[in-house]
């Protein structure tokens, strides 16, 4: 009898303990969420603030208005839609082409056995580690020289920017892709091969459908990193109407940061939105990809 009550007491105390622990953790979660969201809320508030300078802004804007957004779309030195479309164009083309190049190459690395295969794989990885920032001068010189002959892949041109991005495409994702391909059993290919299918048929008809999840992840990660890149773009693109959004935002921030804080906030927010939506909508797939070895860069 007495032992029963003690067990009951133990149970209730365990339940109470668990509830307390959940309560504490919820409080911690609230603090963490505040820490995480504060800068974002601050930008939203700045973009809605009527005065639009850094010094006068408060968290809850006085007289909130969409004035900054309207200004943003009218400013000549801030052609938002132009930059935004440039960014979407460059990121979309780059990520699709890079996906195609990487997948086909990873298939060859995973399925064929040839001399120098390991050396090439290692070399590709090491080359990718080279700090490309400094190769920038060489890249710039090269693009300007090529542009003297073929202007459409010269300076201030999206085609050349995309080509340069694609030059780094294989290095980043080929290991991830090959790792995934290695997990697909080779019996599949071999049975198809016996039936006389060519490598290209095996690749397109059998392997590609199986690769779908990883293809999505690689394409998205690529899209996000291209969308956010500004160093190369800033060096290769020379005129206002050719800038990508990140280059434009950075230059705008450098020029009149504190005075046009509200306009900057509005532009930043609208520019960040597509990526945030992609992330939150596909977070499970992306998390899967991240844990398999891609680092945001």
């Amino acid at each position, binding site marked *: 009898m007495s032992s029963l009550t003690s067990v009951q007491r133990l149970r209730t105390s365990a339940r109470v303990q668990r509830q307390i622990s959940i309560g504490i953790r919820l409080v911690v979660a609230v603090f963490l*969420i505040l820490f995480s969201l504060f800068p974002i809320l601050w930008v939203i508030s700045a973009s809605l603030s009527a005065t639009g300078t850094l010094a006068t802004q408060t968290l809850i804007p006085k007289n909130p208005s969409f004035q900054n957004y309207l200004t943003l779309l009218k400013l000549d030195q801030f052609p938002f839609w132009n930059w935004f479309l440039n960014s979407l164009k460059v990121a979309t083309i780059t990520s699709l082409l890079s996906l195609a190049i990487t997948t*086909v190459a990873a298939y*060859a690395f995973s399925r064929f056995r040839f001399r120098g295969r*390991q050396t090439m794989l290692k070399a590709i990885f090491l080359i990718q580690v080279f700090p490309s920032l*400094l190769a920038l001068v060489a890249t710039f010189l090269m693009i300007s020289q090529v542009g003297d002959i073929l202007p459409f892949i010269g300076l201030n041109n999206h085609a050349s920017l995309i080509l340069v991005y694609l030059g780094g495409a294989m290095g980043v994702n080929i290991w991830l892709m090959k790792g995934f391909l290695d997990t697909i059993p080779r019996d599949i290919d071999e049975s198809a091969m016996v039936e006389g299918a060519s490598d290209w048929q095996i690749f397109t008809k059998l392997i590609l459908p199986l690769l779908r999840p990883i293809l999505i992840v690689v394409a998205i990660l690529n899209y996000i990193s291209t969308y956010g890149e500004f160093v190369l773009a800033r060096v290769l693109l020379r005129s206002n109407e050719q800038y990508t959004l990140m280059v434009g935002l950075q230059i705008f921030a450098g020029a009149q940061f*504190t005075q046009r804080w509200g306009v900057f906030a509005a532009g930043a927010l609208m520019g960040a939105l597509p990526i945030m939506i992609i992330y939150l909508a596909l*977070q499970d797939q992306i998390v899967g990809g991240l844990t398999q070895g891609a680092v945001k860069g």
Partner: protein
Amino acid sequence: MASNASLDTSKKTPSSSAPILPRLVGFALLIALDVFAIWFSTRLVFFGYYPLLAAFLVITLFVNVVVLRKQAYPIRWMLIGLILMAMFTIYPIIFTVWVAFTNYGEGHLITKEQAVDQILDLKYLPESGKAYAWTAFKSPEGDYVLWLIDADGSAFLAKPGEPLAQPLPGEMGVGQLDAKGVPETIEGYQRLNPILAATDKTITEIQFGEAGQTIQVRSPSEAAQLVPLYVYDPDQDAMINQETGVVYKNLRGTFTSSAGQQLRPGFVASIQWTNFRDFFISPALRGPLVQLVSWNFGFAFFSLLLNFSLGLAIAIMFNDPDFPLKKLIRSLLIIPYTVPALITILVWRGMMNPELGVISRTMNDLFGWSPPWFTNQWWAKIAILLVNLWLSYPYFMLICSGALQSIPQDIYEAAIVDGASPWQKFKSITLPLLLVAVGPLLIASFTFNFNNFNLIYLFNGGGPPIPGTPTPAGYTDILISYVYNLAFSGSTGINYGFAAAITIIIFFIVGTITLFQFRYTRMWEEVSENV
């Protein structure tokens, strides 16, 4: 492995020779490519872009070999990727390595031939030399011609940019000659009287006659042919000044006299290991570089420690399948990670702005004091670590919660039976197993932060500046941002050669860590097993 390859090719032969059409199309494409390559190469030669030409020819040759040789069949699958990589990644790297052994930079941007040509173009008016008596004519548009008579009495007509002519009266619009042998009129021009001509400042600045043999007015009565100021002596590899006799010897890409005077422009010259030696032993750079390198490692290490600890703590805290609102909390917590870093870093810069930013204003209101985020080196370092924590803990949270779920629960149950405390469970089970899973990502993250240029550059540009350094450097600069300033900031002495040398040193550091990562994760062994 060998049998497999032969299997592949034996399978290939029937399937690739049977359809003639694709092969013909392939050859047609290759021929088109080669035609284009030949045209492009001739253009490169025309412009004198020889390094690019070499790279282009190597790549074209490679493409031809791969397409024509049957053994290269697997390479065809990755051909486009390899071409792009060779052109836009490897070629710039080779260029950078070459530059690291030169003095390429401000004042040393052109080739030696170009520099020599520019210096040889300099002229001076010798005290003696072939002299003429001159008379000036001026057109209504302001063009001048000179009528020159040399010591033998021969007369010449000199126009800027044209060879000297010896017209007789009636030719080239030249009218009747007067008593001194000077034409009274030249068609289209007005003869200037000697006083007017002697006071006209423009005349003395004009070079008459064809390039290389130009004639300039030296005094009211005399005009003389200009001669080159310098003569190049290939034996000494030196420039000799004809007016003063001073010898300027080639010293690391600049013609320098024994007194230390330098001729502009300098040129790109190989200086062997000097850039690397400077990095390790130059006394002027010692102080700032020791500071830079130690902060670089410190920054990468503490970033990793802080970001990983917070991410792990959160992951453990919410690693509970029944926790309420779990999905929502995770979605909210990863938001910092979803905004492009450029935007959030700039926003943090605004929020921490010493006078105007919200953080500083709030702290000023509450405590009457706010940390000098941008002017004090320690606060600047703390600010950077804080911003980086905000940026990257969601990533660690995500990978840690993924890894935690892969740890089998029965290990914990066994530990509870043995009476292990929560701390012991964490220390002896969770942490070791977790580290095995996420270890490679931690190393990758360390190397990423080691070169985290965006954060430093966008947040405070490496400031506050270290006083008294020969090249601009700041207390929060890491190697890569310091290198960027060396190579691109126009303020003081762009030194691309030195910047390239540091890049290579960075590459060795990061490359070593990467090799270690391979060893640690057995990535390469895995590759070997697959073979």
